[in-house]
């Protein structure tokens, strides 16, 4: 099913400036997202995993321009999002919605569920009041809540129910792409599976495309078609799910996969325990940013940033180990 890409992200960079010093000038920047390139095909689920602080959320928000990207291009449905005016972006958000990580913080505590879900309709001027009410009831049913819940307030729901509400809100305007920023990581396993099932069902029902951000590798594996791995603001590997999990190329991906404890006492695979911590994005290491923790680090890794390239079968990685041209480039 080689569909056309609905979303293309090219060399996206988002830096936050750090102000300080005597005159509170810019004294540095956090390279939260530092040159990320990928595309999402219509109807697929692209998963993004990575450790905390590696820039997953910032990527998601930059695509929607909730945070202004510093550099790079985002093309959605043929429209260059990064070149649009604020008003055009606002209109575009009808087609691109977002679901947030924290089900407790992402709903306005002072609004009823009805108001929360109908708000996007309201904002985009869709339907009459009656129609909107009708739609809210439908949506509630779709996500497994009861229509009479519409009159309640968020604090009267459990985490999983709230996340359902968040999903209902995102679906209200019939978007094409939904960016899911860790939608299940705040939930307990038993509830998590309810939500994951729901999301899968809705994807088929509403013909959605997901950009699914998470830090739980098994969740990403479960839901995604393709998976990208981020480390310190950059994508280090991107591949078809099975390829990535079974034949990872990048040393970081390998380590990450091996570090996940498996709930099966019989499986005892050799763990690659990485030393040290993730470096700070405000002062990333030179060359390959992973070289400080990489078990197979080479001299070149400390100097040169590896190129993001296809290593066959649509498997992309940025690692000198797989870069035959490295030496040639060095000579140049």
């Amino acid at each position, binding site marked *: 099913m080689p569909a056309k890409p609905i979303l293309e992200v090219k060399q996206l960079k988002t830096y936050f400036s750090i102000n*300080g*010093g*005597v*005159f*509170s000038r810019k*004294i540095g920047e956090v390279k939260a997202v530092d040159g990320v390139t990928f595309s999402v095909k219509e109807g697929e689920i692209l998963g993004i995993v990575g450790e905390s602080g590696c820039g997953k959320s910032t990527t998601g928000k930059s695509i929607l321009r909730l945070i202004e990207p510093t550099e790079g291009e985002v093309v959605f449905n043929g429209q260059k999002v990064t070149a649009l005016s604020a008003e055009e972006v606002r209109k575009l958000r009808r087609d691109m919605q977002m679901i947030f990580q924290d089900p407790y913080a992402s709903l306005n505590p002072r609004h009823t569920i009805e108001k929360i879900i109908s708000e996007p309709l309201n904002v985009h001027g869709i339907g009459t009041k009656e129609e909107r009410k009708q739609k809210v009831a439908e949506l509630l049913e779709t996500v497994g809540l009861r229509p009479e819940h519409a009159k309640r307030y968020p604090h009267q729901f459990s985490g999983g129910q709230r996340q359902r509400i968040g999903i209902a809100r995102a679906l209200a305007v019939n978007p094409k792409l939904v960016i899911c920023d860790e939608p299940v990581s705040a939930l307990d396993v038993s509830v998590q599976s309810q939500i994951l099932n729901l999301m899968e069902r809705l994807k088929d029902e509403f013909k959605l495309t997901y950009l699914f951000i998470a830090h739980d590798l098994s969740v990403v594996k479960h839901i995604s078609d393709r998976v990208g791995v981020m480390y310190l603001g950059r994508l280090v590997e991107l591949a078809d799910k099975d390829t990535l999990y079974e034949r990872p190329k990048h040393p970081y991906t390998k380590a990450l996969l091996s570090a996940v404890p498996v709930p099966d006492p019989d499986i005892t695979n050799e763990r690659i325990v990485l030393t040290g911590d993730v470096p700070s994005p405000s002062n990333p290491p030179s060359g390959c940013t992973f070289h400080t923790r990489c078990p197979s680090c080479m001299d070149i890794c400390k100097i040169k940033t590896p190129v993001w390239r296809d290593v066959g079968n649509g498997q992309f990685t940025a690692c000198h180990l797989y870069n035959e041209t490295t030496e040639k480039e060095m000579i140049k």
Partner: protein
Amino acid sequence: MLAYAIRRVLLLIPVLFGMTLVTFSIIQLIPGNPAQTILGEQATPQAIAALEEQLGLNEPFWVQYGVYISDLLSGDLGVSLRTNNDIAQEMWPYLAGTLELTVFAMLFAIFVGVNAGIISAWKQNSIFDYTSMVIALIGVSMPVFWLALMEQWFFAQELGWFPAFGRNNPREPVEAITHLYILDAALTGNWQQLETTLKHLVLPMVALGTIPMAIIARMTRSSMLEVLRSDYIRTVQAKGSNQSVVIYKHALKNAFIPVITVVGLQAGTLLGGAILTETIFSWPGIGRYIYDAISYRDYPVIQSGILVIAFIFVCINLVVDLLYAAIDPRIKYD
């Protein structure tokens, strides 16, 4: 740390500049003619006109402001219209009076407030907690001038325990060296003077210190309670430390951070309340100096007085910020 301090000081510059503009504009906007005030109700219009000319009151705003700023920068606060004295010199004894009063009031407030707060938090929901918090609630609601009046009436007039006015007994003139009488008494070894000075301090100090005391007590208590619920206190308990180590080492230092902020803010209440307290207790302090100057339209004195108080207030808050940074290693010194 030094860089941080310098940065904080430099950040003050726009504020200080704004302050001079405000004080200067206030003075310009106040209706009323200083010349008239100086000369009184029995003055002739000619005399008033001549005095105006002489005082340079006819110049345009920006010219006067320019002169004002350049004088300020050279340390010149101007000359009092009323007394013809150099304000910088004349002000010191008043300032010393206010400093003595406010410092003692603040010490009183901190000492009583912090201790009451700690005990209340420690013995949460005890009788002590309830009574001290009710007292604190009343203290917070107390108009300082009324408290001062009632104190003066009851303790000075009815009971005669404390003197009703001033900083010293007129029969024992003080030898002023620094004009901080307590310090002077200590310097000259005059214990008699120390005693009378302290006696004079008690009522105004309590009047002025009560509101900050109540606020500090409440703040200490709630901050302490919050800290006592925190994860790291649980850690300290989990490693088997003594209750006193938990409270006085770990909890208090953390609880102090918001308390310090409150103390800094209360400095403003104190300096403002000083005007009222000084009026009631005939305390020769800067509040009264300014208040008198207002009714005399003594522009330079009003200007300088307000500026000096605001400056002190800003400085206290600067110190609070630095103290904050000294206590809390998380404050970044960049």
